[in-house]
């Protein structure tokens, strides 16, 4: 049997392969509560919450190519909005989550504004500044947020009726499923965004800003909306974190969390779909293992070296590595276009010059004409 196996796209085998994957995921999700003890389940929930934040960051940095060094701030805003609203002011958890996401969206748009005028590296600085700003604000308004002493007692109680969620174990399972649904919803939002019209605009903006603007992509709208959504998703993760761990301190939402999110995204595979989930699990459970492995600050050295090694060894991240591995086994061959489709595409002008704007591009870009139609997806 010659590897890689070729499966024609859209054929029955392809459909069942895809369905199999979906069922596999669903099976895994549903059986986990039965397989692991309660504390491990709440750790898994913690990792899933981290995954939601990384999905948010991936939308901004992976797909849209914008560097954010302050994503912990949005995570923090979500967390503290829920914390303050449910503990200090006794609102419902769901309302606090929605309020947190709305606030993050607004702050994300405001932070995204300079992104219109500044290039990647400056944006990193702007977001770094926001990330450093939040903890000092939390400490200053300590009567509201509990300041350095921390905010305690956030819970998200399971609905009474269902026996499945009764007792301490039940509460953990309830939070687990809430987080699973939240993660799937976030992935869905990012997925629709990325494969839709907005997604194509975002990727063109990333690859060649000048060309995108010339082709009518409203740069301001796309950039700020993407920043807002990315921040809102990170806010959602923050809110869930608050109710899952029940304790919030300014140190939790510091630069170290941003670094963990960044590493999780790149480790998992930035710009890919399942990457963030892989990355989040590894970043959550690595310190748990390394602390058994080595005591003291040496594990910080290992973590840093791991980050550097990853950039060199696995540029595509785990997801990238996995897909290339999978590609060795199974290839989904695109269907040859039926006659009807061919006529439709032939209306394109045959000599599509390589510079849409007619100007001579910088010598650094490749003057030979690029394959005109399809935008390669990373």
């Amino acid at each position, binding site marked *: 049997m010659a590897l890689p196996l070729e499966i024609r796209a859209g054929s029955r085998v392809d459909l069942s392969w895809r369905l199999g994957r979906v069922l596999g995921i669903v099976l895994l999700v549903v059986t986990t509560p039965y397989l692991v*003890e309660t504390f491990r389940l709440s750790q898994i929930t913690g990792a899933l919450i981290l995954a939601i934040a990384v999905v948010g960051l991936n939308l901004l940095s992976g797909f849209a190519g914008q560097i954010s060094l302050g994503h912990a701030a949005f995570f923090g805003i979500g967390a503290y909005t829920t914390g303050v609203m449910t503990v200090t002011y006794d609102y419902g958890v769901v309302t606090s989550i929605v309020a947190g996401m709305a606030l993050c969206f607004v702050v994300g748009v405001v932070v995204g504004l300079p992104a219109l005028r500044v290039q990647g590296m400056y944006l990193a600085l702007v977001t770094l500044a926001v990330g450093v700003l939040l903890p000092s604000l939390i400490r200053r308004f300590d009567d509201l947020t509990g300041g350095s002493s921390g905010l305690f007692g956030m819970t998200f109680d399971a609905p009474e009726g269902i026996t499945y969620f009764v007792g301490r174990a039940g509460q953990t399972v309830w939070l687990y499923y809430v987080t699973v649904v939240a993660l799937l919803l976030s992935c869905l939002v990012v997925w629709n965004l990325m494969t839709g019209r907005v997604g194509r605009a975002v990727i063109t903006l990333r690859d060649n800003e000048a060309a995108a603007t010339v082709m009518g992509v409203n740069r301001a709208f796309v950039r700020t909306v993407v920043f807002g959504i990315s921040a809102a998703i990170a806010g959602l993760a923050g809110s869930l974190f608050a109710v899952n761990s029940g304790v919030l301190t300014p140190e939790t939402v510091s630069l170290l969390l941003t670094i963990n999110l960044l590493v999780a995204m790149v480790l998992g595979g930035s710009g890919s779909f399942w990457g963030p989930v892989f990355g989040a699990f590894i970043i959550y459970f690595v310190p748990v293992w390394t*602390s058994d492995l080595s005591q003291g600050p040496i594990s910080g050295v290992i973590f840093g070296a791991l980050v550097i090694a990853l950039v060199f060894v696995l540029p595509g991240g785990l997801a990238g590595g996995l897909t290339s591995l999978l590609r060795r086994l199974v290839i989904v061959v695109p269907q040859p276009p039926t006659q009807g489709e061919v006529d439709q595409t032939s209306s394109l002008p045959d000599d599509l010059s390589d510079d849409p704007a007619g100007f001579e591009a910088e010598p650094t870009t490749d003057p030979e004409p690029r394959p005109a139609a399809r935008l390669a997806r990373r």
Partner: protein
Amino acid sequence: MPKRTPLLALVATVTAIAVTACGGAPGAEEGGSSSDNSDAASAAAEVLGIDLAECPADVTDPLPAEANVGLTLPLTGGPATAFAVLGPGAEAALEQANAEAGLDTKFNLIQKDDQFLPDKTVAAVQELIQQDEVVAMTGVTGTAAVLAIRDLLKRDCIPGVSLPGGGAGAADPDYPEVVQGATPFSLDARIWVESVNEQFPDGAKIATFIGNTESGNDYALQIDRWLEETDSKSEIVSAETIEAADAAAPSSQVTTMRNSDADVLFAAPTGAQCISVLTEAANQGWKPVTYLTTNCGSSTYLGATGPAGEGVLVVQPFKDINSPRFADDEGVAEVRAALEKYSPDADLENTTTYSGYTYAEALVEAARAAADSELGLSRLGIIVAARQLDFHSPMLVDGVDFTVDGLEDMVPIEAAELNAWSVDEGGFVQGELYDFEGQLTEQ
């Protein structure tokens, strides 16, 4: 992957959840009524405000031959360099008890990393309780960490003896299971105010320089509390703060305090800031009567300040191992020998190692007392015994004991010497002993 897969996954998951929701709950049922408790146990628990019915059934069973004890501390990240040495210290105390105390139970210390983040402490303690089935916790570092996990201990009626959180939160009558391990900030504040009242009978102008951290907040509260409760004529004329991450010399804060011409400085920053605030004050020619937090009250810090450290007053309930005064103190020698014997890789020059020893030592004392008590060596026995502890640790200065009494006196260390740093001696000169036994618990 075409459009439909994630949508498919979501729909499938939600239906699956609904289906299983009608099935049996995955986790085993917890709680439930406890077995036939002797009336002595429920009486003892009653006194401490513990409802035995809430506790798991095995709270009064004698401990197995081999029992785990949990310790959470920062093993990775920045704070690890300062606190990781607690582990070997605590290990030594427990191994020593296993060898010499003659108890029926051998204690096995399990360390878990919490990166000094309270949410990680919660995750680590849950793992220790459910997986390692720890019978007691010791050495949980930081008041925020203690506040974060004390409900977990209360729910499973697990003793936390002793937990180094200096804040009032670690000595709270509502949580009898938690016994405070570190020097409380209230003792520092109480002695500082007492000393100022003595030196300045008609009131002094006080400047405070406090870290914007959790311990800093507590210091500020305690200082105000004791100025009020001793209706001192002194008053705070300048309250300056410093951020934990700010490594620059606090020149602007010292300038402000100097300009308020305060006679007294209460300084409670963190880490290297203890050195830089003293050198900065000296460099600006400002020489107030200076009181420095116990966290910085070791010769590694004051030794580094040069002339600026002369005469700085520090509250010291514990012996400073690097001061010449205790060079050949047999109490310190006894603990150093235990460390060398039972925990060979312990850093014998680091004072924090010895603190780790004292935190676990309190647990050993509680276990010993429980074994002799009517309740026997059980979790409840340890909790009850720990609330009546009264012993003198070899690391404590003479005249200072580790004493608690039920819910009235929740603070174990309520006496200390106020020693002054002497540059020529290269150590602390013994000062007056202040004893506020039983007065520091906040009702």
